[in-house]
């Protein structure tokens, strides 16, 4: 059941992110971009090989307790920081675009190009 809910939420967030990217408002597109990152991180945590009732520490392992999957956590840990870096870069681009073209409407920028 929980898998089903996770999949539903991931799909929904992904769809929302893509929709934001498709629309004309660049600020919301940037937010949509960040939502895509969140959806992927969510997928990672759900895709862990096993779930557990304890954090992955050596003491828990030695006590034969069922820990959560540390590998996906390590993946997400670095992914969060890197996606924050790319997100700030996207925001920087939006900022520069708004300054240079005096608009945050992607359609208008397209018109300027031709």
């Amino acid at each position: 059941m929980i898998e089903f809910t996770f999949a539903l939420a991931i799909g929904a967030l992904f769809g929302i992110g893509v929709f934001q990217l498709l629309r004309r408002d660049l600020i919301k597109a940037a937010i949509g971009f960040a939502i895509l990152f969140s959806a992927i991180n969510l997928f990672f945590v759900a895709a862990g090989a096993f779930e557990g009732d304890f954090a992955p520490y050596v003491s828990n392992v030695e006590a034969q307790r069922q820990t959560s999957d540390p590998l996906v956590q390590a993946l997400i840990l670095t992914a969060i920081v890197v996606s924050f870096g790319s997100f700030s870069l996207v925001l920087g681009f939006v900022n520069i675009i708004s300054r240079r073209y005096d608009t945050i409407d992607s359609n208008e920028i397209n018109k300027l190009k031709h």
Partner: protein
Amino acid sequence: MELLIVTAIPFLLAVFLALPAVRSALDKSAQTLLSSLVMAALFIWLLAFAPRLQAEPTVIQSFDWIPSLGITLSFYLDGLSLLFSLIITGVGALIFFYAGAYFDDASEHNRFMIWLSSFAGAMLAVILSGNLLMMFVAWEMTSITSFALIGFKGGKDADAREGAFKALFITSCGALALIVGIVMLSVAAGQMLYPDLGITLVADIESILKAKSLAQHEWYTLFAILIMLGGFTKSAQFPFHFWLPGAMSAPTPASAYLHSATMVKAGIYLFARLSPVMYQNDLWTSMLLTVGLLTMLVGAYFAVKQKDIKGLLAYSTVSKLGTIVAMIGLPDQNGLKAALVGIIAHALYKSALFLVAGAIDHATGTRFINRLGGLRQRLPALFFVTVISALSMAGMPFLLGFLAKEVLLDAMLHYTAPWTQLVMLVIVFSAVFTAMAAYMLIYDIFLGKPRSEIHFHRPSALINLSPVLLSLLSLSLGLLLEPLLLPLLRLAVPKVFELSLFAGFNDVFILSLAILAAGFVLFLLRKPLIARITFPISCDMIYREILAYVRWAGTTVLHTQSGFVRYYLVIILGAVAAVLIASGTLSNIAAGQRLLPTDFSVTITDLAKIFMLFLTVAAGVMTVVVREHVKAAIAYGVIGYAIGVIFLIDHAPDVALVQLLVETMATVLIIIMLGRIRASIRLKMIEGLWTGRHDYNLGILRDLGISIVIGLAVFVFALIALVNRPERDSIAEWHLENTHLVNTEDVVGAIVADFRGTDTLLEIAVFTTAALGVLTLLARGRQTGGAFVPQTLQPSSLREFDEDVVEEIQDATSLSTPFTRSVSYVVLPVAILIGIEQILYGGRGPGDGFTAGVTIGLAVSLWYIVFGYYEAKRQLPWFRPELITRLGLVLAIANAVFPIVIGKGFMGHVEFDRALGLYDLIGSFGLHITSSLIFEIAIAITVMGGLGIIIEAIAYPTARSNGRQENAYDEHETMQHV
């Protein structure tokens, strides 16, 4: 080991010259002296190998490189590579010295020397490598350094850019062919190391058998042609020769070194090296002979037509390279002998002539032959050099060039094939034209009428030293055959090698004199003759045509680019779907997989997670439907926090901590960014979208449709992946069981800092790159139409901005209340303490390098928000993000590399406390000083610095000239209007 060191030294020299401290401490003459002495020392070192090679024919030294693929870093020195490496270091020492006098500007000189010594290292690596793959890597390095040297003046000189591109384009196309050829050859022979391939200087039964079987191989034609293409392009053989004249836009020392003495000989070296392996098939020898002769002819014929001295020298180099290639194509050892003598003679006289051309350019400001004349009195030393070197080029008796021509003609007279007569004719014809070019160099530049119109400034006498030494060698080496030249040549061509400068008035001697005389007649007739030299089509034109087609194809393809994200999305996803369905991958994946969960039970924690998931989706919908951007940003923050809570419920404390901190940071970032975008722009967008103007919402159904399809697809994939995820048989188990080996409690931390440390290293590098991107976009790139503003980020330069400072503080007042100020003061030290705690004790509880970095980064960003840019800069002088980031990356890399030194391999686990005997002492504080801990510290410093860069770039005040800029705090006013 010695050969590795020999190859590494020029690279180390380049790094040394690039160090800022060295650049400021050593002036131009010290750098010149140092670098030429280094090359001279290498020359002597290599020379010392000669006695050793007399005892054993080869020196082989090998190190593991990629052991899993059987690739080694192997070095191979025999008589042939010794000869080439002596030219590289010997001529190199003289040219390095010359460069000091050639460049007036010290920083240009330094930049040039960095590239030139890197090139010398790459070239030595080509010659000394002991397997084909390593040779190829070095080969490509010479192309790249050559590109930088040809385009050295590219900043202001379009010719230099074009020449550099042309050279790189031609040689790397050739290199592509070469790598395929090398791989095919290695597969066909089953070997890659030189000795195993059958590369040898003395043909024994074994190597002949190997060569014979290779010649019968079904791929032979293909890989022989591919390898030859590589060599032909590199050594400027017809029809690829035209890049060499184009490369003359390089500074002259580079032309003399790369494009005459060394790099263009790499192709020749390749042919000479592989000949013992390849020569058993006629294709090899006949192709080399044909292409070489054609090149010889084309080069000699067009050389005399050139107006630029360097152009003339370039074409004559092409001609000589052709001669040498043709000689290697001769099936007997006489050919190799002629080639080697030719290489030495050419390296000496041609680089001397190039250096003269550079000095003349330096003295008169021109290199055009018809503008020069009568320079004999003014530049007597250079006149001497030119007479000796040009006559050596022409083959005047008893100079070294004469010897080369003698061996060449001798080899041809020994060659018996149906076409010998024709081949002989081609050689004589080219030699006559070469002699003519040599006379032109002497007469038209130094004799004749002095030109009064040229501006003359006397170059420093030091510029003469290298060319004079080179020409003295041309003069004397022919006379000092037995003590100097012959022993070296015998090492390279071990079969009976006899050579004498004067063998009596035989056919060869008479032919040489006849060539010189015929060249003189042509020289007297040069004016009408040169006017007649034309050719309707040149290779350069064909090259341009091809480039034009490439450009046309590029613009044509560009027309299909609409610039709308939706088209790209639809095309990409459509293509992926089509491939998946058509190839049957999709049905393969789906087969045997459950599509629906079997377990429908719901626990209490599941309920909590479901609630949080619902929250994320609801907040996601909010980001779409709310009007104001600020509200969308806050809704986005809600998504982040909800996901953080999910991590927490899933027993991932480290991840949850990072997620919550970063999400805070991201939300703050969006809001600050919003403040930097003019409110009117945003209002226009919002009004357009929400006041029912029809055209703003055109296509909304289409976009909705696309997103629903994508969302559904992701849902289905995610469901299949999650439902069918493997049970406990995961590599995660391994990590859980082995974490205790690296002295930490936290398995996630161990994976990040140790097991998968290389990934993390790359990831912090990516993060830093992104941060620098933001900085470039916002703080540096803003100044359009002018130079970059110097580092105003230094607190010491703040006084010049006094007015700005005042204004900045006033801007900040809206958020700068006594309360927020005191909070900021308190938060920063606390954050730093928390950060330190998280790094040191991250192994025991939540937190690690990432959380520490983000925590401190957040505290600093609070300062920038509350106090504004200048005030924060003034109050936190120690916070210099770029420096901090640099420090973090250097620490991370040093920590990763250090284990190699003690033999534990890249990113190995080192227990510093145990090594120092402090294990128990430090351990009593619950700490372990290991390489993982140092890596965590490096991660924290890098992340903190990167965040600092981003926040500083964002807080950087915008240009005042555009009126009062909007800032974050106008957001409040804006909101009231909406």
